[in-house]
């Protein structure tokens, strides 16, 4: 501790004026609003202040070049989807692109590569019906064709033409003429001499004259030769017979099949790919005609024909996307953008322990449904689904949709899978996300940059002008209508406007965060209805705000309790050396609260280093560490520009066991250091917040309202002394929208809010002493430390070597 008696005395600082209460809150007078309730107002089609985003969206939706997909950025709940919906509806209505149905059909030559058909909307289902009806027609007509007398006659004719027995019969007859019998054996034919119609026994044959025997045997050999010749012709004859019968069957098949497909081809003649498919189907039906002849007794009944027709799945039409009822281009929002939900999938069924699939089991994804129109995706959901982002990019770059399983996509598939023909893709993708994700993608994904070239940036707030105030009121009316809420009277509108300024921490601006406004109105409506009111009044809004705070306030209350019970030490009166009340803000999602925290400093003879204890133990973030370095530089610049600064100091946030980040405590830290160096007491009845630069300028900080209220709550709970208050950066004065109880205390002179735009004013406010006397005292102390340093270092030794070991 410095010997304060040897240091120059401190002189009182001139009186400092606090902010008047009018500067602490910008009211919205109900009289400024030219309506009684919002029911009188016109709804607002679009959120105010979104001109930049709307212009970007308009451009992005209109430009047709590749790579001009859109990223609409804004915080969660700001109203991205709602903004888009209106704009997209207009764009879709203007759209002149044809709306198409998309179908998958069997590829008869390669069933594992189904073919895609594009048809005008509504024709997909029509084609499916037509094919089903064609199959029913064939099931009815083909069996009858093959039961006709004409068919049986032709079969009979062919049968006789290829009668195998006739040729054998001829040989048999010729043999009989020479008394030789041709007899059928189990395996073929044999020839034997006969007499009187009976086969000659061996002994009788042996008894014949030699010449006769020879002649008989020779004739038998000759006849055998002929027989063999006929037998050898049999295979060829049979092949010929089969081919002729096939031709006959095909001829009769065509009689039934050709008219059916001729009608279909005529109907779809304007669609070349459909006609090509019908040609292939026609050919396949001709090949598979036999399957249609499997007749059942009751097959004439139409319902059973339909049942049987369903068995012929190979001729079915899988209508992937049916846009029959769509009047504008599709607008699809996929709220669960998994790989399969985006790109489609092939389903499987189990048969005999194996998983099988075919074209009829292909299911569409969101890209299919949005094809020709617009697809909306949430960026955070898209990026957290495995393979979804990669799959989407591939589809956009290739301009087609390939239905693949993830294993196929990454070439992991070990078994054969379906590979449907890719569907040509013409879609504009709109990703909705926050700024953080956008910048991550910009930084780390070059494909994102090339595919999403249009960024639409939604604003979170607007200027609080009379015009915007009017628009804001209309927006509240629109929200009320949309969610079926009571109208707001103008006092309620005024209160919401003030709250919107508070939300954005700026009395000159209004938050247009749709989600938060909707929550506030809904909760206000609930309270109003419960009270039996016919409209929402300011009291309902206040109650809703307080209730929302109360629901999340437990941590703040516990924190405050800890201070009031002096478990956490925070002084709110008296003075102390090297000790300042800093202010921290705690963010809990959408809720924040402020809390005073004791910052202490020590100083001693050393090598000129300011030790940030938080940083030393890895509890201090980078920004906090930077702020401490700035303080060090400021200190050195202010008090040791032309000489070494032979002191070591340390700073700490007392009783802080979590991380510290930010620079908003740097004013407090510097004041604590100066106090510690020169033994200058600091007023504990004040708390201070503010960031410093190297030249001592106090810079704006965030959470100023919560910080002021946090210190006020502690002082108020202990009993306001009348001299307590908070010092804030002058630049933050415009951000003040303090609570009513704080304003009331200020109006009554029991609490004060001061501003400081440089460290000099802050020092004077927090110590009550003039900055000149403070500087003189600090400088004198530095002189003392220098002398001590020289004494300890000895003559000729370096004055820069101290207990810290560095200069």
């Amino acid at each position, binding site marked *: 501790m410095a010997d304060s008696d040897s240091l120059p005395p401190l002189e009182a600082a001139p009186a400092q004026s606090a902010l008047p209460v009018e500067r602490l809150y910008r009211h919205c007078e109900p009289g400024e609003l030219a309506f009684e309730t919002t029911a009188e107002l016109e709804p607002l089609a679009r959120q105010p202040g979104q001109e930049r985003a709307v212009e970007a969206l308009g451009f992005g939706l209109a430009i047709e070049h590749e790579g001009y997909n859109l990223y609409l950025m804004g915080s969660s709940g700001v109203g991205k989807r709602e903004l888009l919906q209106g704009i997209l509806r207009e764009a879709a209505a203007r759209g002149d692109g044809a709306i198409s149905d998309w179908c998958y059909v069997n590829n008869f030559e390669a069933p594992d590569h189904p073919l895609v058909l594009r048809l005008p909307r509504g024709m997909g289902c029509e084609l499916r019906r037509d094919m089903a009806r064609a199959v029913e027609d064939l099931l009815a007509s083909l*069996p009858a064709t*093959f*039961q006709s007398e004409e*068919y*049986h*006659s032709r*079969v*009979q004719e*062919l*049968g*006789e033409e*290829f*009668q*195998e*027995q*006739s040729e054998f*019969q001829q040989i*048999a007859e010729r043999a009989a003429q020479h008394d030789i*019998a041709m*007899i*059928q*054996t*189990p*395996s*073929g*034919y*044999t020839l*034997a001499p006969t007499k009187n119609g*009976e*086969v*000659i*026994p*061996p002994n009788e*044959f042996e008894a014949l004259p030699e010449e006769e025997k020879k002649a008989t*045997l020779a004739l*038998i050999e000759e006849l*055998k030769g002929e*027989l*063999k010749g006929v*037998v*050898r012709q*049999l295979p060829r004859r049979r092949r010929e*017979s*089969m081919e002729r*019968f*096939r031709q006959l*069957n095909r001829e*009769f098949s065509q009689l039934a099949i050709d008219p059916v497909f001729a009608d279909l081809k005529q109907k779809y003649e304007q669609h070349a790919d459909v006609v090509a498919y019908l040609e292939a189907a026609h050919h396949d039906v001709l090949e598979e*005609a*036999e399957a249609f*002849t*499997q*007749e*059942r*007794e009751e097959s004439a009944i139409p319902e059973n024909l339909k049942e049987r027709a369903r068995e012929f799945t190979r001729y079915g039409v899988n209508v992937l996307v049916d846009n029959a009822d769509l009047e504008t281009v599709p607008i699809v929002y996929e709220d669960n953008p998994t790989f399969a939900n985006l790109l489609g999938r092939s389903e499987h069924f189990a048969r005999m322990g194996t998983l099988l699939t075919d074209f009829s089991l292909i299911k569409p994804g969101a890209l299919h449904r949005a094809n020709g129109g617009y697809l909306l995706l949430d960026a955070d959901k898209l990026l957290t689904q495995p393979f979804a982002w990669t799959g989407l990019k591939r589809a956009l770059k290739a301009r087609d949709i390939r239905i693949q399983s993830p294993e196929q996509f990454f070439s992991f598939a070990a078994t054969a899978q379906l590979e449907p023909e890719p569907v040509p893709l013409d879609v504009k993708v709109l990703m909705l996300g926050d700024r953080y994700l956008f910048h991550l993608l910009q930084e780390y994904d070059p494909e994102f940059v090339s595919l999403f070239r249009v960024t639409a940036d939604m604003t979170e707030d607007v200027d609080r002008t009379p015009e915007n105030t009017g628009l804001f009121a209309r927006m509240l009316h629109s929200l009320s209508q949309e969610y079926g809420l009571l109208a707001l009277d103008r006092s309620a509108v005024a209160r919401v406007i003030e709250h919107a300024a508070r939300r954005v921490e700026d009395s000159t601006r209004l938050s247009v965060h749709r989600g938060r406004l909707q929550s506030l109105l809904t909760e206000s409506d609930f309270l109003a209805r419960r009270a039996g009111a016919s409209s929402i009044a300011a009291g309902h809004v206040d109650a809703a705000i307080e209730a929302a705070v109360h629901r999340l306030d437990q941590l703040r209350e516990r924190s405050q309790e800890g201070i009031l019970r002096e478990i956490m030490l925070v002084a709110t009166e008296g003075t102390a050396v090297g000790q300042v009340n800093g202010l921290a803000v705690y963010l809990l999602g959408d809720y924040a609260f402020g809390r005073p925290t004791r910052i202490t400093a020590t100083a001693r003879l050393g090598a000129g280093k300011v030790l940030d204890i938080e940083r030393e133990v890895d509890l201090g973030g980078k920004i906090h560490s930077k702020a401490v370095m700035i303080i060090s530089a400021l200190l050195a610049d202010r008090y040791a520009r032309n000489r070494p600064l032979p002191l070591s100091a340390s700073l700490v946030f007392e009783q802080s066991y979590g991380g510290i980040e930010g620079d908003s405590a740097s004013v407090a830290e510097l004041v604590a250091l100066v106090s510690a160096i020169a033994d200058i007491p600091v007023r504990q009845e004040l708390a201070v917040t503010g960031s410093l630069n190297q030249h001592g300028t106090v810079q704006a900080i965030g959470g100023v309202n919560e910080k002021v209220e946090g210190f006020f709550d502690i002082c108020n709970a202990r009993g306001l002394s009348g001299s307590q208050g908070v010092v804030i950066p002058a630049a933050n004065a415009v951000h003040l929208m303090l609570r009513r109880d704080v304003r009331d205390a200020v109006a009554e002179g029991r609490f004060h809010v001061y501003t400081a735009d440089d460290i000099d004013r802050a020092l004077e406010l927090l110590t009550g002493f003039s900055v000149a006397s403070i500087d003189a005292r600090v400088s004198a102390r530095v002189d003392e430390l220098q002398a001590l340093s020289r004494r300890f270092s000895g003559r000729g030794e370096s004055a820069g070597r101290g207990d810290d070991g560095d200069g």
Partner: protein
Amino acid sequence: MADPPAIKTIVLPIDAHGVSRATLDILVRVARQLDCALLGLFVEDARLQRVADLPFATEVVLTSGGERRLQPERLRSHFGKVSRDTRAVLEQLAGDNRVQLTCETASGARLGAVLQRAGGVNIFLPGRERWPARHTPRIRRPAIPRLGVLLGAPEEDQRLLSVAGTLVDAGLVGVVHVLSPGALDAERRGAIERLGLAVRVVRLDGLDRQGVTGLIRRSPYDLQVLPFSCVQEIPPAQLESALDASRGQVLVVT
């Protein structure tokens, strides 16, 4: 409903060629509907055995066009196997359909042996040719898609039409063609109409023995029902030859 026919037994001659299971199935079902017993007559072809005894006897094999020695032992062995197999199938089918079955053996020509037993028995003669690759409904089709009935003497027609009617009533028949050697009188016409649906009448004026043989040879019918009077004058060898070329079965009604 047709009058039950006054017939008792159907004889099935079986030689070394055997009879297919499908044909046996039709036969057993017909026998059941006609309330007949079955007699399987296994006829060993003596003539063929005599040929085999000749020292120079060979056979031309249909499957290869080659020639091999015709051996008596092989013929007997083959006939024995065919007989056993056919008998086993017949017994199973007869048992399943509750049709009385007896079996006998005989020696001689197949048809000669069976035609000698005429008088109170009917004869089922399987054709040996196969139908070509025509389109026929395969699921739940009638066992006898096309039935042909050749009318003969007036006193036989009643039994023939009764047989046809019984088979139609049992759902075994798809279409019936009634083949008339001449003009139909009113009585026959009435009997035909009582058969019910899907009947066509075909006039075959001047049908003689050769005509009947040709009808059997070129039969477009899955089963032809013939009066015994039409076949009794046909030499067995000629009848055998016609059956060799026939695709359908023949039921000779006495």
